[in-house]
């Protein structure tokens, strides 16, 4: 192959062709450029792609739209993550009961005027609900009414309305392990939030107690003792 190329390189025919091509190219290089067209040579920047700056990249509509979408996705993800971090056994039921608290009217409850701590006996005697006890922190509060109802999972829920800050208490069965049936206990008080309502939940003897009011954690905080999360 190399020999063939070398032979061809030195052939008269090839040398003639090279001279021919060179002469044509030289002649073309002599083509004069009209002055009107030559003006473009001074303004080469006009047809150069503009340099990308950070500002241009950021203000590019596509980049902007993608960035906003990513921020929104990240926000939703973070919100759900934080929500999950605050979860505890029974938090789903607690949130549902916050909605119930928001829609409850006093006429829906049986009027009862007593100290909240004494209603444990009522729940046991009348409804057969064991350990539906109001914790000591809330035991002295004067009640306005109470009721016992089944939620959509047929769990027996006790609801108490007290005079103090129009607070409501809920007592409901603690969540249990699906396989062993053991109570999924958690220590101290846990907060749940739903549409402007806040609840503080504690578990004791397989029953969750939740104190609910319309407001924020700081409104409930003073009533609670022990660790809060």
């Amino acid at each position, binding site marked *: 192959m190399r020999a063939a190329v070398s032979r061809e390189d030195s052939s008269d025919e090839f040398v003639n062709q090279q001279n021919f091509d060179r002469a044509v190219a030289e002649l073309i290089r002599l*083509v004069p450029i009209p002055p009107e067209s030559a003006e473009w*040579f001074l303004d080469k920047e006009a047809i150069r792609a*503009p340099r990308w700056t950070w500002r241009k990249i950021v203000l590019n509509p596509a980049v902007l739209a993608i960035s906003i979408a990513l921020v929104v996705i990240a926000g939703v993800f973070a919100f759900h993550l934080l929500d999950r971090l605050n979860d505890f056994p029974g938090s789903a039921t607690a949130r549902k009961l916050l909605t119930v608290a928001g829609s409850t009217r006093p006429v829906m409850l049986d009027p009862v005027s007593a100290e909240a701590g004494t209603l444990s006996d009522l729940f046991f005697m009348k409804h057969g609900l064991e350990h539906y006890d109001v914790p000591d922190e809330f035991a002295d509060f004067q009640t306005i009414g109470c009721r016992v109802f089944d939620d959509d999972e047929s769990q027996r829920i006790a609801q108490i309305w007290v005079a103090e800050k129009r607070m409501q208490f809920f007592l409901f069965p603690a969540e249990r392990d699906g396989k062993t049936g053991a109570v999924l206990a958690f220590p101290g008080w846990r907060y749940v939030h739903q549409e402007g309502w806040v609840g503080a939940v504690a578990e004791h003897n397989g029953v969750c107690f939740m104190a609910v009011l319309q407001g924020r954690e700081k409104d409930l905080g003073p009533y609670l003792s022990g660790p809060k999360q």
Partner: protein
Amino acid sequence: MSDQKQNLPQLYRFCFLMLGDSRKAQEVFNTTLREAAVRAAQGELPREPFWLFREARWRCLEASKTDLQPESLEIEEHDIAPQAALQIKQLEPAQLAIWISAAPDPQRTALALFYLDEFNYLEILDIAELKLSALSRCLLQGRRQLQAWLDAKHSGAPEV
């Protein structure tokens, strides 16, 4: 795009070789660059190399569509003569441009791009959208036809 691939004098010469008429070449050259400037201002310049030459090529072909077309005659071909370089030196650039512009495309594009001495073979194949065999055929035929034209021109010319 690099400066090398944006050689504007060569772009003008390309237009001139494609059209054989400086007024038309100037018109196509200016239109191509004006359009490029508008696209540059809008940030829509193509990223691929040689797009200016490709654009100019299509404009040249479009501009020459309405011109008188060469008759489809069997054009004489001669072997390259040893004195060809001398014969070429006696030509005016405009004469060569007219001869190249009269060739049918894609031979016209192939000859114009090749003799600009600006691009390598791969780049010519890319701009002219030709296969290597077709480009080789165009150049071979072009050389032999140009030689025949030079021979005819010089045999007809009075000896000095």
